[in-house]
Each structure stands twice: as C-alpha cells, then as structure tokens.
C-alpha cells in the first residue's frame, strides 16, 4: 500500500491582515488561522489516490500547539495519522530551516509507519509565500521533484512511476517519473471534499502525535529555527504609491476624450517604438 505524507501549514489568513495606518505595522489581532488552502488540495489529491489505489495518509505540520486544529481538520477529511512537530527551538525558521525539520519529520514518519512513496506540499503558503519548502524537502530526501501539479494522470504501482501535468506559464507539461516523489499542488488539481460525519467524530477525539526537538536524536540544532536560517528580515515597510500627477480630463464628449488621449499618446515616443506611424506613411505614400 502506498504511504503518502501531506505537509500542511497553519497560516494567518493574510487577506484579513490590515495595516495600522498610524504605526505602519501589521494588525495580527483577530486574524483567523487557517489551513493553507493549497495544502488542502494536496491532501484532497492524496485522498483520491487512497480511494483509487489504496494508501495510508500521514499529515505533518510544523507549528505552534494551536496548529493541532488544522491537523484535526485533515483527520476529519480522511487522513489516517497526523504529526505536529512543535518546539520553541523551531521558531523563526526560514525556508531552509523549515525544509530541514520537515525532511527529518518525514524520514521519521517513514521509520514509524513504513516507507514514504509520495509527499504532497502546497504550491506556496498564504504568509511566507515562497514556494521554496517543497523543493527543499525533495532535495534533502532525494525525492523526484514535481512542482506546480495541476493533474495526477496516474500511478503505476508495478513500475512505481507517477505521471502528472505540470502547469507552466505557456502550457502544460506531461511528466512521468519514479517514486518516491514530492508534488506541489495547485488549486486546479481538484475540488476539496467536505468532512464526513464519521470523519468529524474521529477528529473530535483525535490527538495528533507530538514531536519536539528531543524526539530527533540526530537533529543538528545549528540547522533549526532562527540559528539555522540564513535569511534575516532587516526591515518591513508600507510601500508608498509614487504619485504620477498625470493629466486627467472630465466632462468631455467621447470624441474629445478620444482625441485628447490620442494626442497625448502620439506626443510620446510610443508611435516610434511601436511602429504606429509606419502604416499611415504607407497609406499616404
């Protein structure tokens, strides 16, 4: 049976974050913590693979204790096991330190519950928004890396291969590779199901497995948390809109307005740069 690990992060709903206009700082109070929604598309795909091929699904989250809520949500949807990796010493991690801890956790999940065939991450998170943790984990565990997956075409259990559609700027790439692999999920991948009644009942009683730094005897303490993070936020600021003080007209007839705009555009270097005048020269010639 396949063993799938889904990485799920609990994030502040950044759409709800406001800036205090007086202090120019973030107002975090009252901002709801939610499961990063791309990660839920990863979990949904794991559940679909489970429905089709049979699989065991373990969810893992690195975060503070309240992140338990997100793990329970995953259990209610049909995940089999959930691990919360939590320790003050993990705090302040950038993507390098985060992928280190998550890779260690996935390794340990493999040791506890059987070798891992597939790992799902989200495309990116709502808060850090880097999309770097997935490739980081794949690199550390030497997994085949399939980012920006919008469709899982199929898994060949015998040959141990997976075929997916990767989304690129100008089209879709069909890629086949071997297992174990790490996929990062787009929202186009699927539609996330609702929790079932038995799922919700199971989730209500469920206690995730908790791992701290001390549960990883070989963890290098220099590679975790703030100390293990090469990137430092030096400052944050609220961007100011550079005012253009452009020329705006009103109360004009459509023809006047159109002539105004055309006059202005033709007074710039755009007609030269874009060859707008060539055609008319030909016509007049």
């Amino acid at each position: 049976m396949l063993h799938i690990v889904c990485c799920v992060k609990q994030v502040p709903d950044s759409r709800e974050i406001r800036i205090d206009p007086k202090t120019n700082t973030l107002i975090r109070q009252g901002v709801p913590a939610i499961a990063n929604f791309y990660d839920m598309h990863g979990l949904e795909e794991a559940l679909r693979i489970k429905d089709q091929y049979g699989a065991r699904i373990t969810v893992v989250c690195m975060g503070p204790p309240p992140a338990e809520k997100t793990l329970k949500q995953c259990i209610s949807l049909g995940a089999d096991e959930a691990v919360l990796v939590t320790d003050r010493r993990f705090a302040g991690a950038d993507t390098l330190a985060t992928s280190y801890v998550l890779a260690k956790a996935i390794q340990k999940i493999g040791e506890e519950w059987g070798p891992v065939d597939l790992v799902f991450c989200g495309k990116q998170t709502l808060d850090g928004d880097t999309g770097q943790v997935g490739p980081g984990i794949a690199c550390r565990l030497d997994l085949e890396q399939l980012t920006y997956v919008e469709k899982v075409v199929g898994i060949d259990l015998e040959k141990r291969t997976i075929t997916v559609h990767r989304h690129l700027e100008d089209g879709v790439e069909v890629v086949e590779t071997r297992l174990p692999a790490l996929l990062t999920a787009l929202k186009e991948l699927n539609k996330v199901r609702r929790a079932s009644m038995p799922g919700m009942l199971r989730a209500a009683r469920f206690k995730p497995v908790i791992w701290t730094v001390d549960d990883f005897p070989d963890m290098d303490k220099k590679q975790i948390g703030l100390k293990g993070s090469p990137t430092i936020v030096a400052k944050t600021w609220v961007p100011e809109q550079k005012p253009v003080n452009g020329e705006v007209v009103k109360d004009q007839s459509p023809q006047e307005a159109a002539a105004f705009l055309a006059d202005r555009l033709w007074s710039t270097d755009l007609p030269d740069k874009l060859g707008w005048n060539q055609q008319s020269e030909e016509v007049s010639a």
Partner: protein
Amino acid sequence: MTVKKKAAQPNDMPDWSEYRGVLVVVEQRDGVAKSVSWQLLGIGRKLAEKLEVETIALVMGHGVGHLAEEAIQRGADKVYICDDPVLSVYRTRPYSRVCLQLIRDIKPEIVLMGATYTGRDLAGAIATHLPTGLTADTTQLDVEPHPSRLLLASRPAFSEKMVATILCKQYRPQMATARAGVFEALPRDPSRKGEIIPITCEMKEEEIAARVLDFIQDEKRVNLEDADVIVAGGRGLGGPGPFRLLKELADALGGVVGASRAAVDAGWIGHEHQVGQTGHTVRPKLYIAVGISGAVQHLVGMQNADVIVAINKDPDAPIFKVAHFGVVGDLFQIVPALTEEVKKRRGL
C-alpha cells in the same frame, strides 16, 4: 526570522572575499529566452557595477548558442554555456547539477533567477543543496557597497500590503528569485564584447528518472509578459461581451487584452488574462486600464508600465493616481471613440 533595525556591519559577517560577481541564470524554452532573464541581466549589471565585479550569465539547454551571444549584448561580461541534449527540456536534476557545479567553481556573491515556475523549481533545489539563503519573488534589488556588499532583496509581503527587505549575512552566495516585469532589460547592444565559456553537463540521461512526455501549448494563453500594449478591463465592463470593445482597441494598437481579478472571478475572461498580485506582473510600454478601480493588488502588477492610461467614470478611483493620462467618463462611449481615433491616425 528576526527583525533587526541596525544596518548591517561587516564585522558581524564572515570573510567572503572568495565570492565575487553577480550570476544570472538565463531561462529559456525551445531556444527562446524568457524576458525576465534579460530583465535580470539589466538589474544584475547595475548591482555588479556598484560592487565593481563582473556580470556573469549561465545559459543551459540544447541548441542555445545564440542565447549566449544575446546575453553578452544584454549586459553580461562572461557567459557560461552548457549545451547538451540532456538539457533539451527543463528537468530539475540535470539543471540543478549544472548550476551547482558552476556556482561551486566560480563562487559568485549573488545568484539571480526568475520567479517563474521553472525558476522557483530550480532555485529552491539549488539553495537547499548549497546551502544558502534564498529570497523569493523580489521586486527591488540593491546592494550595499564594499565592504559589506550585502544584497538588499525586497519582496512584497502580506498580499502586497507591506514590503520586506531580506538579508543573508552568514552564507554565500546570496540568492534571490525576481518577479518578471519589474526590472528593466538593457536594449541589445551588438557592439558589446564578452567571453563565452562552454561547460559540460556531468549528468547522463540514464541517471535521470523524469521524462517529459509531452508539452501541451495553451493556445488561449496570452503572452501578457512580453506584450508592448495591454488594454485591461475590470468590473466596470459589467459582463463578458464588452471585452470585445477592448479587443478592438487592443488590435488597433497592436496589443493584447488583460483583466482585473474582479473580471476574472466573475468568469468574464480567463485567468490567463489576469494582471496583478495573483496574476501576471507586466511591464508593457502602454497599459490602458478600463473600468478598473486600481486596487493595490492590481497596481503591483502594472505600475511599471511606461505609460498608463485610465478610463473610469469615478474621478476618485485610485487608478488615476498612477495614470499618466486619464479620462473620467463612460467606458462604453470612450473606448469605441478611442478605437476609431487610433485607427484613423494609423491609417487602418
């Protein structure tokens, strides 16, 4: 991550004198470079000049010799080129192997890549391998002069409401991915001279598990990033039909049609047309915003256009703050009139 107010002092940093130069990784598909690659060479060259070091480009692919030449014309002093059938399509393992080898050999102090799907895939793998810090999706890049030589990599945060400047003091190289359409490419200068150095790909096809079986070009997908003229419509259009008016104006100007998220979410036009934080960041020569209010998440996607025109019936719409030329009025009357006027002047 910590928040430190103090400016970086070199004495809290190791000696990095071995690491010099700015490396830009050129992204291409089928021998066509992504425009972001040349934009990165543009900004990379500025950083290199400030640091008094070389601007270096890396071109990977198969049959991509012409891109090495173009990289020099676009600002590189030195181009490393790895031309090998194994690299004919992008795959993480061989591409990251070539990059890593080069970075370890030449030790650049800064490595820049596009924040594209491929760039993010590759940068994430390389930064972990090295290991070093990687700042994602930057929109401003600067350096502190010698001796600190720190890369000041700034990126939008929290739905574009803030900008964060991120430093990497204790590791080299300093890596960043950068958004397409933010930085300015240098015009091609055929008289520029530079050195082209071939390098080899150590990876053999048999060692690579991933196989790209097919590429399905999306015919519908518009190339907003490379368009010179974009005529974009928002909620003010009121439905899918009026996008035809924008298409006619765009055709007359030799451009393409873009959209705000409100128009995309309403289902009036495909997501591939969306400009803004969760759509495309564009840098056209001309951007015409029609029936778009100018929310910050939209502005971040288009405010680097050379010339911005706004057509909106609300004189207080924030889009007028960034517009060079604006008309307050009804788009249903003004857009067709403008299309006629443009056609007349162009003799179409």
